[in-house]
Each structure stands twice: as C-alpha cells, then as structure tokens.
C-alpha cells in the first residue's frame, strides 16, 4: 500500500519535472556552448573548411549569437541537419537555434511551432540545367526528371509550379545537397531545383561551372532566416536582435575592424546604443552591454559577412540584389535600436 503511494508520488514528481523546462538562455549559459543547427554542407552558407572549421553565411549568424551570449564566437557546437530532420531537432531541444537556409512560411511558423526571427537572405526557387540541353525557360521543362530535396518548400513549390503551368515532371527525391549534386552530374536527373543562392553555390563547386545554367524563372519567394523554438520569447528576442545588430552595423558603418574604436563613444547616439556605451539595451535582453559589439566582431557586419562568404568576390558570386540594405534599394532593414 505504502509502496503504491510512494510510486504515485514519484509519478507526480516525475511529471512536474518533465513538464517544467528551463529557459534556453540559461541552458546555453550553463552549457557554455551554443548548439546551432546548420546545413549538412552547402559551400558559402555552411560547410567545414579544410581544417574542419565551419564557415559560411549561415554559420556567421551562429557565431554572432554565440559571441553575443557567451562572448566567444567559437563557443558553438555545429549540428549538421538534413532538411528532413531540422525541425524535429529544434523542437526536441537538440539545437538551440537553426541557421540553415530555411524558408519562412505560415504553416512552419504557426503549425510547426517555429519562431522565425528575421530574414538574412531573400531568395527564390530556380532551376539549373546543363547547357547542352538547350533549355532557356522553366516552362520548357515538360517531362523533365528533376532532383529535389525532400522535406523542403522547394518540393511543394515545384508541384505547384508544374500544376499551374499544366506540365508534367518526374521527381527524384534526394536527401541532401551532396546527393542531389551527384545525381545531377551523373545524369540521373535533367534538372536540379532549389533556392537560387544554393544553386549558385552548388554550381560554383562543379568542375566545369560554365556547362550549367540557372534558368531565369524564379518560381517562389523564399525568405530564408534563422529560427528558434516557439514558446521561449526571450531567447527569440536575443537571436532576432543579434541579426538586427549585424544589419544596423552595416547601415551605420560599424565593422569588425572599427567596432572597438567606435565603442569608445561617438557622436551618433544609435551607434552608441548598439555598442552599449549608451542606454541599457543589453541588460533588457539579459546580456551584457557589449553583446552587439561582440556579435559584430565575430565575423563582421551583415555586408561583410555577405561579401566574405557568398559575395561577388567569392566563387559563388552572388550580387546583393534584394539583399542590399534598404538604403541601397534592397529589402534588408532593421528596426531601430532604441
């Protein structure tokens, strides 16, 4: 009898323990490491370099958050996730945030219980074909065999686009970018479809990039950005404002090189507030005053990150286009630091 009561008490205790969860910020600080979900390998966005160090456009966001929270841009555990496993990994707490070219959609935001904190790349879905096929438009792709990564918005857009244009295709489902590249190059599919930035990155890794063309059609809007779990708003705020700090830094001319110099105090109150010499913005986020400075110093401001990883001087050679600052005619815009 007593045993049953004891077991009952144990059950209740276990239940309470199971239901209560500590805040992500406390978890990260206690661990001393940020677990960041990234792509399994997409040159320019997230891939390990020759020394096994993760580099890329998305990786830079992880490093900036780690720097803001922990003060160390290398305190990141990169977890490579396939498009299929990423949401489960985030929801189960395996990673604290995702920076993995993930499209912001309503159903992911609402139904999958994700929280998108912003957009770091405005993209659109495109198609790549070998030049020798002589295809000039996506509408010519009737009957083509198309390699598409499973579990992506790409897969759904593809079905929509072909249905809207009343043409048919044969999908070849692939797990990750490396596999789709291999299938495409072996001729197992005629066309590769994914976000145009990823197509450019993939093409840059080919032996003969000039033998392949990216078709002009952009069949979807793909706003890619970092995301966190639904339900921990304080943590979402930190990731959101870290990204905004990088964007504002570009707008106000704060770079990795001059951040320390400007942190001594400037005549611009907004720069002072970002760098923590004025106001208590860091404290409001639960971080120290120099959080944004650390984030900017991690890999530079938004523009520096873009140019270093995917910009025109790199083999991927993406132009800023929509991803220029709003002041330069792009869509990248940060709410004010106030």
């Amino acid at each position, binding site marked *: 009898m007593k*045993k*049953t009561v004891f*077991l*009952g008490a144990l*059950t209740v205790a*276990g*239940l309470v323990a*199971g*239901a209560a969860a500590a805040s992500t910020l406390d978890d990260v600080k206690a661990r001393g490491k940020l677990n960041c979900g990234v792509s399994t390998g997409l040159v320019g966005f997230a891939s390990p370099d020759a020394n096994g160090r993760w580099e890329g456009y998305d990786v830079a966001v992880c490093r900036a958050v780690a720097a803001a929270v922990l003060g160390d841009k290398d305190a990141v555990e990169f977890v490579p996730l396939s*498009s*299929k496993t990423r*949401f*489960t990994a985030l*929801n189960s707490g395996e990673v604290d945030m995702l920076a993995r070219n993930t499209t912001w959609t309503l*159903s*992911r935001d609402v*139904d*999958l*219980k994700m929280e998108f904190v912003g957009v770091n790349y405005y993209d659109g879905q495109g198609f790549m074909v070998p030049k*020798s*096929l002589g295809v000039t438009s996506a509408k*010519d*792709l*009737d*009957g*083509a*065999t198309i390699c598409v990564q*499973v*579990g992506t918005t790409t*897969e*759904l857009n*593809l*079905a*929509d686009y*072909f*249905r809207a244009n009343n043409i048919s*295709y*044969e*999908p*070849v*489902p*692939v*797990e990750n970018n490396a596999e789709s590249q*291999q*299938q495409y190059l*072996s*001729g*197992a*599919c*005629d066309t590769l479809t994914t976000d145009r930035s990823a197509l450019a990155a993939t093409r840059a890794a080919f032996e003969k990039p000039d033998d392949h063309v990216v078709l002009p059609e952009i069949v979807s809007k793909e706003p890619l950005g970092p995301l966190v779990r*639904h*339900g921990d708003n304080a943590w979402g705020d930190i990731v959101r404002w870290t990204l905004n700090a990088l964007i504002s830094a570009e707008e106000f001319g704060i770079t990795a090189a001059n951040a320390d110099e400007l942190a001594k105090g400037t005549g611009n109150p907004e720069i002072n507030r970002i760098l923590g010499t004025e106001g208590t913005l860091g404290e409001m986020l639960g971080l120290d005053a120099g959080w944004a400075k650390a984030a900017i110093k991690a890999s530079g401001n938004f523009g520096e990150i873009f140019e270093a990883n995917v910009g025109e001087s790199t083999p991927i050679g993406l132009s800023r286009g929509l991803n220029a600052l709003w002041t330069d005619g792009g869509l990248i815009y940060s709410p004010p630091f106030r």
Partner: protein
Amino acid sequence: MTTMTDPPKASFRLSMLLYDTRYRSITIQVIAMIALMLGALWLINNVRVNLALAGKPFEFGFLFESSGYEINQKLIEYSSQSTHLRAAAVGLLNTLLVATLGCIAATFLGVFVGVLRLSKNWVVSRLAAVYVETFRNVPLLLWISLSVVAYSHTLPEPREFRGDNPAATMSIFDSVAVTNRGVYAPEALFENSLGKASVLWDSLNIHLDWVAILSVLVSGLIVSSLIARRATNIQNATGVRPSTWHIRMAVVIIPPVIVALILGFHLGYPEMTRFSFKGGMLIRGSLIALWLALTLYTAAFIAEIVRAGIMAISKGQSEAAGALGIRPGKIMSLIVLPQAMRVIVPPLISQYLNLTKNSSLAVIAGYMDITSTLGGVTMNQTGRELESILLLMLCYLAISLSISSVMNFYNERTKLRER
C-alpha cells in the same frame, strides 16, 4: 490407533503476503505489474502534457489534408492534390512491391547459392562461400549506397540514345532502353479498351481489360485442372494415362489470346523526347537498385539457412535414393529439399520479415516507400512526428504479422506429422 485431524486452518493475515512463500511470489508480481503500469502511464502522460505545452494536440486530421508533393512511382492514381493518407497508401504499396520482389528473388538466389555451397566442385563451393561471407558481413546500408551509385554511374544517360550516331542503343529489337534512370520497356495497350471501373468509394481505378484477361486465364486454369483430374481417374481405372498436355495448354493459352486480340492488344514503345523517353513502362532505377541490394543481402542469409537445412537431412536419404538409380539433380529436388523445407521454413520467415523491414532504407535509393512518404515528407511538411511514426510502426507491424501468419500456415502444412 490414531486420530486423523485436519491441519489447523490458518486464517489469512496481511503479513502472509510477504512472509508466506505461497503468496510471496504473487505479491511481488502484482507490485511489479503495478510499477510497470504506472511507469507506462507516466510516459504517456508526460508525452501528452508536453505535446499540449508545445501546442501540438495529438490528432490525425492532417492525414486528410492535401499533401502538396509529387511521388514518382505510384501504383495507384495520385497527384499533389491527393491527401496525405493517399500518399501513405502509395508508399505502402511501393514497400509491398519491393518487399515481394525482394523475397521472391532472394529465395531463388538463396536456395541456388545454398545448394552450390555444398557442391563437390571446390571452385563453385568456395565462390558461393565468398559471396555469402561478403554480403552478410557488410551493412546493408552500404550495399544499397553502392548499388545506387553503381546503377546511376555505369549505365548510359537517356540523352546518349539521341542523335544519328548515338553512344547507346536500345536492346531487344529496339524496344527496351536500359538507362541510368531506369529501364524503359514497352507497355501493353488496348485499342478497344473497356475503360476503368472505380471501386472502394472511387479510391481505386481498375483496368477492366486486365480483369477480363485475368478472369479468362483463371477459368482456363480451372478447366485444365479438371481435365488433369479426369486423366488421373482414367489412369486409376485403366492404368493408361491419356495424353492431355496439348489440350490443357490450349485451354489455358488460347482464350486469353483471343480476348486480348478482341480488345486490340498492342505494345506502346518508349520514344525519345526532349529530355528522356516517353511512353512505355518505366521500371525506375531506384527500384532496381534497392531490389538488387535487398536481394543480394538477404540471399546470403537464406543460402546459409538452406545449407543448414540440407545438412540436417540424413545422408542415408540421398544414398538410398542414389541406390535406386535416381540422378543427383532429382535427388536434390525430390528427396532432400522437400524434407529440408521443414528445417528451412521457420528461419526463412524471419528473413522475409527482415527484408521487409530493411526496405525502409529505401530513402537512400530515393525510392518512395512508406518510410519516405508518411515517415519522411508528410512528417516533415506537417510536423506531426508522433502521429506519423506511430502510424508507420503500425503499418510495418501489420505487414510483418501478415507475412509471418502466412508462412506459419505453410510451416504447419509441411511439418513432419508423427503418427
């Protein structure tokens, strides 16, 4: 003189539950059972509470929403407008297809290799041993990957069939194209088609042409077996068996051919279009590669089972058969194998189950089985992990239990009856 008295009737006391050996084991079992049930209850409740906290109620409504994705190999009609449930059904049929093909091929290959391993020819038996040891000692995952890569890299691309002087040509009278996307073969078409019939609340469309041909074929087979029975009766009565094979063959073959001709049967050949072949029937490379890997891997295990089964049969059996002048091939097929089946069938069942469950590795080959549809795309697009995985487990459980019940029935039929 002794008086017999009953032993004193001890009244039951609570402490006896612990100290009386008659009750102790029951007490322990009851407590263990309660603990187990509480543990299970706690786990279930924990899942429920946490799902509710995450705002994800446990429900299956998502199965009836439109799926939004395409599937390449579909045995029933399906489009991106169909429901997730139908996508799961398409995947289930694909799983069953590759499992059935795999089981059949692995059985033939396994029996063949198992017999070869016992061959007196040194080279042949060593070769069989090398095959068995290589295949069963390397993970299946690697065999599937190898088979996929080998398939897509060694065979010609469809575009190599194009042009005046193509690098690759079609085989078998220009009707079959073997490419790295799959095998394009001619398909059966009917000029005066009977059309299709919808059954099961419009969820399935059946080609009436095939129904007609199959029903004529089946009735031919029934008539043929009646003729055979009559022949046996005559043989029993007169001792002479009338020759009936030509009549039986005619009864089976001629009616379906006539029906096919009436329906206007002809072959639709695959033709080269801008990207690839169109028309005809495509057996996809993903299916072939997966089938090949599953077959080769499982056949290695079946070969060992067959070898064990044959070795379990007393040598006297084959020696006796040899003394009667029966040839070695006949000894194997008529004397040894039928008896060996009793030993072979039970472990063979578990190999069939393994093959079916291993087919869930299909995703590596890009084959859309149920793990790729329900447990892959659907789960990922809807975010219903728990529901999808539970359904998936239920599907595999149902398939496995059906296979083992059929095989157990067969085992019951063939096992040694002791009288």
